[in-house]
């Protein structure tokens, strides 16, 4: 099993619903976020292109954060989901330094926090909160090993890219372009 997400940049309008849905679902404190949206503009008026990317932890296959954690707080759960056990985390910040995507942050309580792919929902057969709320349905989640999962189907006929592939982390967020 390999959980992954595909994000359709051709449909995303950058509304931020995924961010606020994550905030209310996971009780993320104000001023922090586990997912976010990047807007990228290229070109000169009027020859322009625009891309919205809903970003979050890439749940990398080759995850530097898990490797550099001195206590094993950062670990891989089922389907490759990268999690942090709060009561094992000492807040040393090594995993934050190790992440090429700046996907982790120190929670005001001290431990390091990040996207969990809403594992509490996924285990019950639901999608992550961001996926289920997206008005444009531009987020697709599922198991890459299942050819009929939402994410596998989304990736089947489309071109995609991952972020910072040269960092070698084998990220599992696929941006449909």
């Amino acid at each position: 099993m390999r959980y992954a997400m595909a994000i359709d940049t051709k449909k995303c309008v950058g509304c931020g619903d995924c961010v606020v849905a994550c905030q209310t679902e996971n009780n993320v404190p104000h001023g922090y976020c586990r997912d976010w949206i990047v807007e990228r503009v290229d070109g000169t008026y009027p020859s322009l292109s625009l891309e919205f990317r809903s970003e979050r932890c890439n749940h990398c296959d080759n995850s530097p954060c898990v490797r550099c954690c001195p206590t094993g707080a950062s670990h891989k759960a089922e389907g490759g989901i990268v999690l942090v056990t709060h009561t094992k985390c000492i807040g040393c910040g090594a995993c934050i330094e190790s992440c090429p995507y700046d996907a982790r942050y120190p929670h005001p309580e001290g431990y390091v926090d990040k996207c969990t792919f809403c594992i509490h929902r996924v285990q019950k057969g639901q999608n992550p909160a961001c996926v289920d709320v997206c008005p444009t349905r531009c987020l697709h989640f599922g198991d890459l090993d299942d050819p009929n999962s939402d994410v596998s189907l989304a990736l089947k006929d489309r071109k995609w890219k991952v972020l910072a592939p040269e960092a070698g982390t084998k990220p599992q967020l696929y941006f449909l372009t």
Partner: protein
Amino acid sequence: MNEELFVSGRDIPNIDPYLNIWHWQIPIYLFLGGLAAGILFFAGFYTVRGRGRKMQATVKWAPIIAPIVLVLGLGALFWDLKHKLFFWQLYTTVRLDSPMSWGAWTLMIITPVSLIWVASYMKEIFPWWDWKFPIVNRMEAWIIKNRVGLAWVMMIYAIILGVYTGILLSAFNARPLWNTSILGPLFLVSGFSTGLATTILISKDPKERKTLSRIDLVFIIIELFLIVHLFMGFLAGSETAIEAANLFLGGSFTVSFWVFVVILGLIFPAALETLELWGYHVPKWLPPTMILFGGLMFRFIMVEAGQITRYLY
């Protein structure tokens, strides 16, 4: 024009707009670790070489500083932990992939070793010293007898510690400035150099100082060579690496790095030490102080600048 911005209001403390999760504590920790490693290595080195008698400051006096400095360094590290009450989790597991874990365990070993080393000299330093318990006296006797063995252990762990201070940074693939294997040897050499400088400051014996200065000079030259190599590596590398190097080649860290670290922290003291070796009179505290200052600056700059560098996507 290209434009890239967060449109969901992301502005996380210490993460945005630039990563700044490690503050002054980490460079201090790295500096003190390297310094202690330098002191302990040479204490061991001259003991193994059997020249302990001639190198009193190196073997006997300077090591007193080592455990103090190590504890201070650990204190700085602890200070920087965000979830402090759980720090003991560090010692519930050994994680070979994690430099942080390596460091925690290395310090767990080298700190007591350095304490034992100092303890074994207590009676030489303070003739009135008495351990009170016979068992301790018996242990002391055993240690003094096996001091060369202890010196070997100390040297090995000093090298691990010295290299570790660099690897702690270089293991982070995500920060292009750090992600170079030169950082391990560079921090090792720089750490040893600061250790030597400390010993030179303490030593009252001109002959010992001269010996140490000569070694220090070699270390400085190696360090300069490694720095040049570091930038050659960056400039031959990917765009992110070039961008990292540019922070020092015209970017915001150019002045602080080249003036404080390279010129004032390396080239100047090297020149002064050379002059001193040639017989010119140089204030004896000046070159080592400059080296210590340069070493400290080096770590501050590397930690700060490294956090700014990132992958572009």
